Structures are given as structure tokens and as C-alpha cells.
């Protein structure tokens, strides 16, 4: 591509609209406009000029703001759809997830699952969308910030008159002796913190160029933010696991590769009561129970290295009481109290009973997670647990268990007594008893259950937080930079006894016009006119005239 040489002598890259140095219009189409499009200083955005190799084509695709906005809109819509049905991570279900969505929500659920909406943040196409937004951010920024930087760096004090005439704020006037007035203006500009440059009696006053970098700093922040989010997928950076642990159990803490173990001694649920003071009385009357405290009393252990299935040697680190907002912190992990289950069946007690007399001959207590086979009651009385079905069901006329969880326990007992040495067989499930070998003399009477509580804990580790925070801070710096500072430029040119004055800012034109007014006040230099406003006014008047006519 050939370079474009301007009449001022500056050599511009191909595709330049306004000469980087003097601002002369190089693109003939722009010559017909009354005002200039000053976006990116009329510099040559590379994406629009080089389009040869596949690399260039990919680059140009992502360089388009339209593409970027489309990506953001598509991502938003996908995110909205992702809230229609519950996400997989929020479900606690026994059946496989793919079945669940179809059974519960029909064909819509099936499509939802197939397209990956059930785990939106983990689905590949959603990640690709986010990644594309990241790529678009990088390329859009690079493609604009570099030419803009060059154009602002290369700008000359003396500008082409056509450039000045097509600025929004502009005025010109024939003046004879200007030296004194220009000195006054220069002094006032300096006082207003303008950086004033002079060349052959022409002025360029500029301030706040810094503000132009705001959006790009902002984008850098976003990109760092995205990198932080990306690192969550890298091993070792992010852990977010649930741990359900029964009172009395010692389990490996998930996400720590069996490096740490936890014993749950007790789960405590405390309610407010009268003793907490009069102030609670009314609320308690209205609400019934109000929870005061959720707490798990635990012991933390460090484990020696062990294989899967192997119980490692544990070394106690500390005892702790995990409460809401008072997590257990160790290494880089934090363990939060997040849920609980009360009164899960742990043990069941039965009495061996003579049906007729009602006389009992002792109790047996069955631990549902680890039942024994034989229970000796003494005096020749003895109960054998022949089989145990934790989650009882009957399939094809045969008793079996649906799972290994004690949800609906059922037992087959053999009751051996002095008068029935062969033993009687009784099958006991919840609310039903079957005597398969004929009418029995004895039965197992259900007496009581022992229950146990579960603590629901959340294990979390997040090393990406500092990176995400840094991204956020840089993002806000960019926002502040672009919002609270203005980039303002004033050009003053003397040409054949005529003074041309033009101004450009990236925002707040009204304030800028007022500032120039005070700067030229009392001098012969003319106050610039807002040509856009003027045009709008004329258009309005024209319309008004028409409607009257």
C-alpha cells in the first residue's frame, strides 16, 4: 500500500482521512461535509486498509465495533436464557442430570440440556463467546489506540485552514494588529493549564490529552479481569466444593487432594428465645422460631500422603467452631457453614415381643450404615439380621434396594427363642410386616430411632481474586480518566490578515465554548460559534416556517 503525502510534507499511512500533521482532508469524500468527523483524529484504522491474508481477515473481523457489540448482545441473551431453568450446580438430585431436565421440563428441558444451558458457565460455546469478547476488546483497542496516539503525537501547530473551518467551534475575522491580543490569549490559556505551542504566529493550545486514553485503560482492566476469570479453570487456582459430613464422621476435605481431613463433632442449630431479651418477644410471637446460630464443631487434620481408598495417618491441626460468616481458614482454603440436615435416621431400635402376651425379651439397636449380623439378648433369646435393604423396593416380587442410602430401610429378622429353636422369620419394612414362613409367635416391635445431623460445608479457595480485583481497579481508573478529564484543543491561525479560531473537545462542548469565551473576552479575537448548534437551529426554523406556511 502506498503512503499518502500531504501538501504540508507529512507522510501519512494509507487510508488516512485527515493528515496527521496539519489536518488537511485527504479523503475526497470528506470534503463535501461541512463538519469533520473527528473520531480517532481521522487516522487510518489499519483494519480498514489491510485485508489480504487470513490473519488480516480474522483481525479485521474482531476489529469491528459492530462485531464486538453483537458478541456482547448474544452473550447477554444467552445469559438470560440460562436463568430460565435452574442451573445444574444448584440442583441436588439423585438421578442423572440429563434425565432430570427432560423428565421435569419436557422437550424444552431436553433442548436446554443438549445445548448446554444447564451448565452455562461451563459450556464450550458460552466460553467461546466470552473469549471472543476478550479478543474483540484487545484488537479493537489496539487498532484504535495506536493510530490515535500517532495522530496526536504528530499533530502540528499550523493546521490546514480547511481543517479549522470544519471544526464544530469556529470563527474567523479580519484583524490588523493582533500581537497584543495574542499575548493576552496566550497568557490566559497558560493560566487555564493549557499547554501552548507557537509556530509562525499560529497557536495550538491543548490540555487533558490523558483523557483520551481512558477507554483503553478501561479495556486493559477488563482484559485483566477476564484473565483472572480464565485462571479459575487452571488447576490449583480455584476450589469451590460442597462437603456433607455427618456428626462423628471424619472425611477428606474435597479439593485438597486428601491433604486435609475434617471431623464433624456436632452440628448446632440455636434459636432465639425469651431469655435473649424482651426485644425479641414480638418477632418470636409472629415468626415462631428465629435462628440465632448455625455452627459446626470440627477438628482439622493434616494427612500424610495416601492412595485412593487408603485411610491416611492424620495429624491434628486445630479445633474450630465454624459459624456463618466465621469460616475456618487454613492454608489458602476457607470452609464455610452453608447448610445442614437435621434428624436423619442413623439407628433403629426394635423389641423382641411375644405377640399374645405382649411380653418383651430385650431390644436390638441396628446401626443403619453398619449393621451387625447377630444380636444376642441372653436367656436363649437371639435375633439374626438375615438381610437389610437400606432403600427398600420390590422388583419382580423380590425385595431389593434402590441405593445404599438408608432412606426407606427394611429388614429380614430371624428370631430364635427357647421355644422356637429353629427361629421364626419376619420381614419388617416401614409400616408393614410380612411373615413369609407362616404365622409367627413373636414379632419385632419398632421402638425408636436415633437420629444424626449433617453439616453442609462449602470449601473454597480462590487465588484469582487479587487479579480480578486489580482488573476492577484499573477498569475504574479508566472510567475516571475518561469521565472527569476533557481533551480540549484550541487552534489559532493567522492567514493573510485573517484570524481563524477553532476548538475541539471530546465532550462537554458547552463548557468548552464558555471557556474560550472567557479566554478571548475583551480582545479583538472573535468568539467561536458552535456550528452544530447553529445548523440545528436553522433546521428547526426551517421546519417551523414550513408548518406555518
Amino acid at each position, binding site marked *: *500500500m502506498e503512503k499518502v503525502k500531504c501538501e504540508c510534507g507529512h507522510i501519512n499511512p494509507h487510508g488516512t482521512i485527515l493528515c496527521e500533521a496539519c489536518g488537511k482532508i485527504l479523503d475526497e469524500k470528506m470534503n463535501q461535509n461541512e463538519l469533520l468527523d473527528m473520531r480517532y483524529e481521522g487516522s487510518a484504522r*489499519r483494519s480498514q486498509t*489491510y485485508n489480504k*491474508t487470513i*490473519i*488480516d481477515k*480474522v*483481525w479485521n473481523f474482531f476489529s469491528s465495533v459492530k462485531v464486538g457489540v453483537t458478541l456482547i448482545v448474544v452473550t447477554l441473551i444467552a445469559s438470560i436464557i440460562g436463568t430460565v431453568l435452574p442451573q445444574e450446580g444448584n440442583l441436588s438430585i439423585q438421578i*442423572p442430570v440429563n434425565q432430570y431436565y427432560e423428565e421435569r421440563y419436557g422437550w424444552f428441558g431436553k433442548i436446554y440440556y443438549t445445548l448446554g444451558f444447564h451448565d452455562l458457565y*461451563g459450556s*464450550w460455546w458460552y*466460553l*467461546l463467546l466470552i*473469549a471472543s469478547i*476478550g*479478543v474483540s476488546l*484487545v*484488537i479493537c483497542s*489496539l487498532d484504535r489506540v495506536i493510530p490515535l496516539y500517532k495522530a496526536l503525537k504528530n499533530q502540528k501547530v499550523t493546521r490546514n485552514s480547511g481543517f479549522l473551518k470544519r471544526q464544530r467551534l469556529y470563527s474567523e475575522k479580519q484583524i490588523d494588529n493582533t500581537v497584543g491580543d495574542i499575548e493576552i490569549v496566550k497568557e490566559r490559556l497558560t493560566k487555564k493549564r493549557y499547554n501552548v505551542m507557537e509556530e509562525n504566529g499560529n497557536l495550538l493550545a491543548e490540555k487533558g490529552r490523558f483523557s483520551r486514553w481512558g477507554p483503553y485503560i478501561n479495556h486493559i482492566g477488563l482484559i485483566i479481569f477476564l*484473565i483472572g476469570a*480464565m485462571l479459575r*479453570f*487452571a*488447576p490449583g487456582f480455584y476450589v469451590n466444593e460442597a462437603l456433607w459430613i455427618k456428626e462423628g464422621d471424619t*472425611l*477428606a476435605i474435597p479439593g485438597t487432594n*486428601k491433604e486435609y481431613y475434617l471431623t464433624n463433632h456436632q452440628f448446632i442449630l440455636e434459636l432465639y428465645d425469651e431469655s435473649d431479651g424482651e426485644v425479641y418477644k414480638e418477632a418470636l410471637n409472629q415468626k415462631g422460631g428465629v435462628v440465632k446460630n448455625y455452627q459446626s464443631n470440627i477438628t482439622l487434620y493434616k494427612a500424610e500422603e*495416601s*492412595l*485412593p*481408598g*487408603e485411610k491416611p495417618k492424620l495429624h491434628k491441626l486445630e479445633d474450630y467452631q465454624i459459624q456463618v460468616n466465621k469460616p475456618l481458614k487454613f492454608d489458602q482454603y476457607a470452609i464455610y457453614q452453608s447448610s445442614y440436615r437435621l434428624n436423619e435416621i442413623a439407628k433403629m431400635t426394635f423389641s423382641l415381643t411375644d405377640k399374645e402376651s405382649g411380653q418383651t425379651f430385650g431390644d436390638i439397636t441396628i446401626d443403619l*450404615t*453398619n*449393621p*451387625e*449380623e447377630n444380636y444376642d439378648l441372653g436367656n436363649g433369646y437371639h435375633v439374626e*439380621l*438375615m*438381610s*437389610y*435393604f*437400606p*432403600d427398600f423396593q420390590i*422388583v419382580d416380587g423380590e425385595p*431389593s*434396594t*434402590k*441405593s*445404599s442410602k438408608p432412606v426407606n430401610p427394611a429388614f429380614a429378622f430371624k428370631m430364635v427363642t427357647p421355644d422356637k429353636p429353629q427361629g421364626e422369620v419376619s420381614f419388617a419394612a416401614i409400616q408393614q410386616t410380612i411373615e413369609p414362613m407362616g404365622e409367627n409367635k413373636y414379632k419385632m416391635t419398632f421402638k425408636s430411632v436415633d437420629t444424626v445431623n449433617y453439616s453442609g460445608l462449602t470449601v473454597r479457595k480462590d487465588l484469582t481474586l487479587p487479579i480480578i480485583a486489580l482488573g476492577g481497579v484499573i477498569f475504574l481508573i479508566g472510567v475516571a480518566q475518561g469521565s472527569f478529564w476533557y481533551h480540549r484543543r484550541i487552534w489559532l491561525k493567522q492567514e493573510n490578515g485573517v484570524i481563524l479560531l477553532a476548538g475541539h473537545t471530546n465532550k462537554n462542548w458547552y463548557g468548552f465554548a464558555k471557556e474560550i469565551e472567557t479566554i478571548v473576552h475583551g480582545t479583538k479575537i472573535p468568539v467561536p460559534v458552535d456550528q452544530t448548534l447553529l445548523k440545528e437551529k436553522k433546521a428547526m426554523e426551517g421546519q417551523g416556517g414550513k408548518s406555518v406556511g
Partner: protein
Amino acid sequence: MKKKRRLALRTIILTVLLAAIFYTLYANLTKDTRKTAAVGEEAPDFVLKDLEGNEHRLSDYRGKGVFLNFWGTWCKPCKTEMPYMENQYQQYKDQGVEIIAVNAGETNLAIETFAKQYQLSFPIVVDHTGEVQKAYGIYPLPATFLISPDGKIVDYIEQSLTEDMIKNYMERIKP
């Protein structure tokens, strides 16, 4: 010259961005299966106790082919294949093939009753914590891993087995 540099620069930037994206996608899609066993790789070692409390360590079976079966008493296809496994075990245990049946964490009572009912003689170990199932990436039962005498995973079968299939598999891992 400048054009060439620009092309090179663009290529580098795009490559870096693409690499980051692919890494993220890869890491995300494999996060659930990252550590699970794969055919051709070494079988993850483990230590589990049988019903009598004896420890079984997989690596102690080096030199023997191991037919590693995951099962539960509630799983119907498991029940179907257990007698076949027992038959073939009798044929192959003297030829250097061992069966290890990993129960998915049930009570001793349930397992004992089951083993008695089907007269199983191969070692049955219990994975109470689910760690071994996790290491092998087990979800539906039954699941069977064929492990060669040098400890490599030869094959992975996630379906109910016929006696012929079991015989075939035993042949494949015979030392």
C-alpha cells in the same frame, strides 16, 4: 518491510489469544475427568479393605492380570454378571488373572449376604469413601477395567457382560 512486521505482530497476538482460549476450553472441558483413568495409561493405585479387614493394594498384583469390577447389590446387571465372573475366575485364577470386585460402599451385611447367595470366592473390597470410584471415573454400574500384568489399563467396559465376553477379557490380560 513495515507490512511484514505488522503481519508478524498480528500473527503473534492472535496466536497468544487463541492459545489462551484453547487452554481455557481444554481445562474446562476436562476438569471433571482430568484425573480419571484412561485406556493405555497406568491404572491408578489404591488400597481397599475386604470384608475380613485385609488390605488389598492394586500394585501388589503386578505380574497378574487384574479384572477390576465395580458393583453394587442394588445394580441388576451386576447380579447377572457375578456368576459368570465366578465361573471364569475358577478357570483363570491359576493362569495369573485375578478378579477384584470393588463394592460401591455398602454395608458388610448386604455384601456378605450377596456373596453368600452367589457363592463368590474372589476378593470383594469396599470403597466406602468413593475415592477409588472417583479415581477411576465411575458413574453408572457395573463398570469393568482390564488391567495388564504391567499395571496398564487395557480396556474399559461400561455395560453388563456375558460369560463369553468375560472369557475373552481374561484372555487379553493373561500374563
